[in-house]
Structure formats: structure tokens, C-alpha cells
């Protein structure tokens, strides 16, 4: 029997009001997450992956709104909590890590104070105890001389160190879920690798569930347990890493993998996906991918396919998911 998931998302729908029109940017997204599991949400810009992350943190501001759905976290529906209740969850049981550390950290406060804040607010620790907790957290993320660094202001740290400090602040709370939105995209390759090692190592130890939003398919291949592929606001494929990468069951996933330059096949021509992802304000009828699909498009494709099970824990939103995908 599988244990109860940490997070159960169903029918998550986010809409934006633009003038008279309501535009759906996240359309009935559903997934589950077990403790200690790393779910990578991948897709191109505008696919809605960051919006899912923000919606779960209830960070959607007008003119956007969460129009539908449930997100059960520890038995409570995050989407039904009032702002005060959500405040008690945010940064406590669910922590978020953003792409740009300089935009996350307050430039006028010392690093130690910023990490202490969560411990004081949510754990009721005294100023001194929280400071000690912050120093310990900085030590845990491998920052040298943590007592001194805690007294630094953000600008005194490098980008990699800033992101480590933010991870320290998140992990110090021992949350049940960490949502990381492109956490290493702004960092150089060698630093990206270090920071990912850290994030994965700590969350594995604490059995924290992680939702990692990224556009980098190769990074997903290395860190994910489960992959969710998003396209134009919809989740089009969801499944265990090996299954999704080795036997993708949605033509978009297959095309996305095919368009990545591969160092092991330098002579292979780049397989571009023709056209571009439709804007969420002008979605095609039926299957969202059919205008760009390399498979034979059939009349069924003019009906919107639902996410259906195609294998063990593996779902695809394609009418012909059981057919061989030609490349």
C-alpha cells in the first residue's frame, strides 16, 4: 500500500481576467506527491509551470485567480485556507525558493536575521535562539565561517552563496514541501551542480517532498523522481522519470527530448519543433499540441484529450498514447 501523499492536487485551474476575457493559464492540473519525492515540472516558457508553483503557495494576485481545484496538504485544502491560515503554512510547512536570490533576500537585513525570521515567527524562538538556529542552518548548507556570514548583508555574498542561504532558510523550517522555481538557472554550471547536490541531499535526508520547476530537461534527467511535462497550461504527461524519458507517451515530450542538443550525438541534426507554443490567449481547439504534432493528426485530435493512464503511475494526454511515437 502506498502511504498517504503529502500533497494531492486536483483540477487546479488558474485564470487571468484580461479586459472582458477570462484566460486560462493553468487548466485542471492534477498530481500527487509522496514525502521525499522530487517532482520536476518541465516545459517551455509560458507553459504554466511557475503559475502552478505560485498557485500552491497562494501567490496569485489579481487579475489572476485560482478558479478551481483542490490541493490537499497534510489533510487541509491549501486553496480553501484563509489568508491568516495560509500565512501560517507559508514559509513554515511549505517553503519556496525562487530563481533570483537577490530578489528573494531583503538587501537591508543581515542574512542571519532573514533566516531567523521564520524560526521566530513560526517556532516562537527567542531572538538569540533563532540566531543560533540560523548559524546552524548556514553551517548545514556548507557556508564557511557561518557565524561571520550570518552577519553579512546579501550583497556581500556571491550568487551561489545567496542561494545556499535561501536553501538554509527553507531547510531550517524542516518543511513537508519545498517548491523551487528554477532555483539554479541564474547560477554558473559548476555552482549549479553544487547547489543542486545540496538541495537534493538535504531534502532526501529530511524526506521533504520537492516540486522543482525547470525548463532544463537534462537537469530533470539527473534529479527527478517523477516528471510532469506542461504545455500551454496543461499537464500533458506525468510519470516516473525513466518511463517518461525512455518511453515518452506524449508526442510533445518526445519532441522536447529530441530537440535537446546531445554531446554524445554531435552529428545528429537538431530536430526543431515547428512553430511555437500557442499563447494561452489563443489556444487551438482540441489537443493543444496538434498544430505542431509530428504524428499523424487524426480527427480525434480536434477533441481535447484527457490525462489517461498509459502505464504504472504514468499518464499521458494524447488520444494515441498507446501508439508508437515516430521520431
Amino acid at each position, binding site marked *: 500500500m502506498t502511504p498517504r501523499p503529502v500533497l494531492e492536487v486536483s483540477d487546479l485551474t488558474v485564470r487571468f481576467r484580461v479586459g472582458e476575457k477570462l484566460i486560462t493559464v493553468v487548466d485542471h492540473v492534477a498530481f500527487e506527491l509522496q514525502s521525499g519525492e522530487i517532482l520536476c515540472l518541465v516545459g*517551455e516558457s509560458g507553459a504554466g509551470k511557475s503559475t502552478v508553483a505560485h498557485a500552491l503557495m497562494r501567490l496569485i494576485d489579481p487579475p489572476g485567480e485560482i478558479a478551481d481545484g483542490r490541493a490537499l496538504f497534510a489533510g487541509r485544502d491549501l486553496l480553501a485556507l484563509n489568508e491568516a491560515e495560509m500565512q501560517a503554512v507559508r514559509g513554515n510547512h511549505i517553503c519556496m525558493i525562487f530563481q533570483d536570490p537577490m530578489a528573494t533576500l531583503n538587501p537591508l537585513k543581515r542574512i542571519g536575521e532573514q533566516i531567523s525570521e521564520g524560526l521566530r515567527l513560526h517556532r516562537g524562538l527567542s531572538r538569540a535562539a533563532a540566531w543560533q538556529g540560523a548559524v546552524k542552518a548556514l553551517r548545514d548548507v556548507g557556508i564557511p565561517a557561518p557565524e561571520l556570514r550570518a552577519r553579512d548583508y546579501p550583497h556581500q555574498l556571491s550568487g551561489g552563496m545567496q542561494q545556499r542561504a535561501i536553501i538554509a532558510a527553507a531547510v531550517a523550517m524542516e518543511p513537508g514541501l519545498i517548491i523551487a522555481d528554477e532555483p539554479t538557472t541564474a547560477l*554558473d554550471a559548476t555552482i549549479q551542480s553544487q547547489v543542486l547536490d545540496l538541495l537534493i541531499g538535504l531534502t532526501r535526508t529530511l524526506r521533504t517532498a520537492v516540486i522543482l520547476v525547470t525548463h532544463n*530537461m*537534462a537537469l530533470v*534527467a*539527473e534529479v527527478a523522481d517523477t516528471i510532469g511535462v506542461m504545455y500551454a497550461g496543461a499537464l500533458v504527461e506525468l510519470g516516473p522519470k525513466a518511463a517518461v524519458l525512455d518511453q515518452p507517451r506524449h508526442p510533445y515530450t518526445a519532441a522536447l527530448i529530441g530537440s535537446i*542538443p*546531445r554531446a554524445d550525438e554531435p552529428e*545528429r541534426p537538431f530536430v526543431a519543433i515547428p512553430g*511555437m507554443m500557442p499563447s494561452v490567449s489563443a489556444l487551438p481547439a482540441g489537443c493543444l499540441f496538434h498544430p505542431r504534432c509530428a504524428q499523424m493528426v487524426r480527427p480525434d485530435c480536434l477533441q481535447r484529450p484527457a490525462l489517461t493512464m498509459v502505464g504504472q503511475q504514468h499518464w499521458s494526454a494524447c488520444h494515441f498514447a498507446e501508439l508508437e511515437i515516430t521520431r
Partner: protein
Amino acid sequence: MISRPILDIRGVSKFFPLRRSLWDRLAPGKKPLAVGALRDLDFSIATGETMAVVGESGCGKSTLARVVMGLIPPSAGTVVFEGTPIDAAGGPGARARRRHIQMVFQNPFGSLDPRMRVHALVREPLVIHRRALGLSSAQIRARVEETLFECGLDPAMAGRFPHQFSGGQRQRIAIARALAIRPSMLVLDEPVSALDVSVQAQIVNLLREKQRDHDLTYLFISHDLSLVRCFATRVVVMYLGRVCEIGEIADVFDRPLHPYTRGLLAAVPDIRARSKRPAAVPGELPNPVRPPSGCAFHPRCPLAFDRCRTEEPTLTKHPQGQLVACHLVTTSNDRPQ
């Protein structure tokens, strides 16, 4: 590949002096500080090849592009283009040179004037070089249309503004703008980094096709090593303004010699991997104002020994083919284990 070099970079260094406080300027014996963005670069690019420059931020990739374009003068050394030394920025030869070398920037949202229509954007370089090219107005009009078509843009859309296009199409406009005057070389500074992968492939294919059609030479600056492996013929690996390793793409990527090259290659996520490979290069980039003694990479190098701390290694030809600046490799003449 034995071919005539189109571009020769001879002993090029670039220092950016730091602003000093009045106190420091008055104090006797205080030397002015400078960031060494490029340190004694020496290599040439052959006609028709794609030379990639890789390295992390701060390694000097973009400074190199700017020096090659003549946008900033080098502090020492010369860049020779087709046998003629490139003058400092704005010199009399600058315009003539830019007829032959053009640049494509990373961000097509920033590199295209939002108030110019597409045809005006592509026409601008033709008008600037009109006399040298000897084109009539009618010929310019025809060239604009032809270039747009060649770059996969519908000439019927030439009356639109850049904001009416997607990122990929905007990069096509930027490439059309660079190619309109039929240059022999393009400096490509992260030309696809701002684009989504599915669109990246379209632009890379376009660049490959144009290279074949016009026998173009590319200086290709990128941090995407997988793309570099597929796109370039040779590669320069830079660290803190210095060249670590330079050689044929297959030699450097399949049999890297310098510990930094190997660490960098190991740090790039690999679609074939199914678990995270541990970070191979510890630590962070040192302060470029006070670079480490000896080999610039030694504080982060897992294989550093005494000599690395005191003596700067020089680029030396390795029997395997590439040039490498590492004491361990050159003394043992073997791959470090």
C-alpha cells in the same frame, strides 16, 4: 583543418582599471588595481570554422567578443582580421571592418530598436555600408527582402515592429540584420540562450545553413556545452581571462585534459544520466582583482600540487592534439587520473 586564418588573436590582454578613492590615488606606493578580463590570448580562427568560447560568467568570453568586434580596444596585443590589424574602437578602419564582421547578441528583445520596423532594421546596415557595397536603392530593397526570406521570415511581415514577433522570430530578424551586408564572419554571443529549446533548434539549424551557404566563420560564445559540442568545430575553454585548453571539439570534449575542462563538462546536466553526478569542481570563482598566484585554477583544482601555486602554466601542445595550460598534464604528458 588546414585553412588560412581569417582572424588572428595575438597576445591580446584586456584590463579594466578599477576606480580608486582619492585617498588611494594620493597614497604613495599604492598601485592601481585592475580586473584582468583577458590575459595574453593567442589563437587564430580559420575561414569557415566555428570557434566556440566556453567558460563561466566572468571568464572573459564577452570581453573577447567586444575586442574582436573592435568595440573596445585591447590593453595589449593585436587582433588581425584577414591580414589587417583591427584598430581601436571608432578608428578609421572600424566601419570597413564591420562590413566583414557582424555580431548577433543574446537578447533579441534588447538588440532590436522597438521603434523600427523590420525592414528598416534589416536595411540599416545596408544604408551604412551603401557606398562600399555599391548598392542602388532598388538593390537595397531587393537585398532586404531576400535576406528576410533566407532567414525564414515572411517578407510580407516586414512592416511590423519587433514586439509583434516571438523570441525565435526576433532572433531571426537579428540574424538577418547581421547577414544583410554579406559579412564573412559573425560573432555570436549566446545567440540562443534566451530561447526555449524547441525554438533554439530552429535558430541553430538556420545558423548552420547560413554558414554552409555563405562560407561564414563563426566565433560562438556559449555556456551550453552540449550545444557547443554539436555546433562548433574547435573550442577555447577560458577561466578567469586565461585559456585553459584549446583544440578540436572532439579532442577537448571526448578527451579533456585540463582539470577545469573536465570539471565543467562533468557539471553540465546530461540527459542520459539518471541520477545526479556529484559536483566536480568545488568552491567559487576567485576575486578577479586579486587572482590566485600560479595557476588561476589551483584553489579549486582537486589535483593541484606545489608548482601550481607558484608558477603560471603556459599553453603547451599535447600529443593528443589540443593545447593545454596545466603543469600536471604537461609534466606527466599523460591524462591526470
